[in-house]
């Protein structure tokens, strides 16, 4: 009789198929590995935004009609459906809206050092406008909702125009305590 596996829902006990079962053809199976490659045009808004990141700047887009500052920026406002108006440069600081301490990787294997990940509202942008990103230089005991944080950038020569030009967000000096 199969024993319950940690992490699987209680209502679905059973024996997992192992890689060995597949490789040794103990079960019927088929497989295929398609060549799947895309190269998406980034478009007007994201192109400008990632060029900003390369320069160490966080850029937002304004919608005058809705009085909003949009991060990530877009060329249209999803509320009023009009085109957005202006580019503005924002601070690289903000506060943690919410977060999770992730103990598993994407293949559900346990990670030795849990990953701190969450969403940040950027200062100067509309509420709940900002990034999903990693957190660093803080422990899982220290992280909390509302924590003030600041971007930690890659060195200018290492930046490539990507969201990962920001390595993570660290506690803002003086704002890191609960």
């Amino acid at each position, binding site marked *: 009789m199969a024993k319950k596996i940690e992490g699987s829902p209680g209502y679905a006990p059973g024996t997992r198929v192992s*890689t*060995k079962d*597949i*490789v*040794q*053809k103990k079960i019927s199976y*088929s*497989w*295929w*590995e*398609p*060549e*799947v*490659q*895309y*190269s*998406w*045009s*980034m*478009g*007007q*808004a*994201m192109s400008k935004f990632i060029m900003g990141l390369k320069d160490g700047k966080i850029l937002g887009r304004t919608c005058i009609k809705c009085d909003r500052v949009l991060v990530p920026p*877009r*060329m*249209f406002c*999803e*509320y*009023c*459906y009009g085109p957005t108006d202006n580019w503005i440069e924002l601070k690289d600081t903000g506060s943690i809206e919410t977060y999770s301490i992730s103990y598993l990787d994407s*293949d559900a*294997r346990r990670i030795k050092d849990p990953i701190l990940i969450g969403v940040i509202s950027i200062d100067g942008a509309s509420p709940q406008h900002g990034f999903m990103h990693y957190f660093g230089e803080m422990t899982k005991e220290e992280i909390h909702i509302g924590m003030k944080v600041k971007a930690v950038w890659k060195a200018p020569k290492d930046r490539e125009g990507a969201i990962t030009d920001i390595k993570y967000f660290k506690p803002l000096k003086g704002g890191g305590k609960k």
Partner: protein
Amino acid sequence: MSRRVCVIGIGHTDFNSITPDVEWKELMYESCQKAYVDAGVDPRKDIDSFITCAEDYLEGFSIFDEFVPDQIGAVLRPCCTVCGDGLYGLGTAYMQIKTGLMDVVSVESHSKISDLLTLGDILLHAFDPVFERPVTGPVERPRYGGSPEYTKEDPKPLVGSTKEKQRVHPYFLAGMEMQDYLRTSGTTEEECAEVVVKNKMNAFFNPLADYEAKISIDNVMGSEYLFSPLKRLDISPNVDGAITFVLAEEKTAKELGVDPIYLSGFGWSSETPWLSTRGMSADYATKSSQMAYKMAGITNPRKQLDIVEVDDRFSYKELQHLEAIGLARPGEAGQMLMEGELAKDGAIPTNMSGGSLGIGNCFEATGMQKALEIITQLRGHAAKRQVADAEVGLAQAWRGIPSGSGAVAVFERGGA
């Protein structure tokens, strides 16, 4: 009283082989904005339901539905994605309006196929994994999550052809089908070539079309064989672009003061997927047209239809589809073409837009491209390619390789 469904707004981007200046969201926004202005509606207030037609693998997103609302005006509104050709979206909109659930519905479909670098493999991924896919080429690098390195005792599994790294391009299916079509119908390769000549010529008169060319049958016949008997020029080139329609119930349309074009019939049908079993004569088109004709009260399509747009992503498809939907007897379409019956002043003006051969393969937006031309014609806005007194038109869509699915929509000018 039975509710009638009509098209009240159309919008589209240009169609281009590449669109590096915009992302797919911006393409969608452009076509939607134009359709909403054309219909005179504010999407945030006036549109009850939003439909997009897209296939995750072509887009490169899992659960593509989730990425749709912003750019079509649908944030926190009823919104769904139909995984299929744009014409299926029109059918979904039709049902939502007909049942009284919604009064105004938008339908968007697009192609950003230039973002996809490995189209051939994505289409092979639509073949049956046990029965058909292994015959298209080898599988070399199977990996499972956390799988160990394969050893002599646990060797790397390998099925399929032993010719390393050679997978057949899935368009061979169209070559196969054309082979069958030529034999069973008696149509010639030259007649198929004339489809290309006609549609590329029509494209000169459609500002939307990017692949216009003044060529002769000799040019087509002289282009290289890619999937014999298909030659390079028999195959429509790929393009990016987006198309949006706004549909409404008749009363709403009249309140908005727009000149409605009625969606009077709709049908759709799917073949079995087994490539060795299914018919080669576009039975999906026959079945879907019969359903649409019945709904639209069309008993003699040849007499009652003034203009048609049928799927012509491969040249022979235009002739095959015309026969399948009852506008020509089997084997007759090629002859009608040569006699000029498919021209603007012929008995059945066909693909006046330039079709996919003249505009390009818009993938999931292909059916909408056909419908767009019909609406434009029925509105009388087709300028130099305008068919005189066009009152009833048909748009037919096929979902493309390797599918055996399609849909048909019949449109009528107001008052009918």
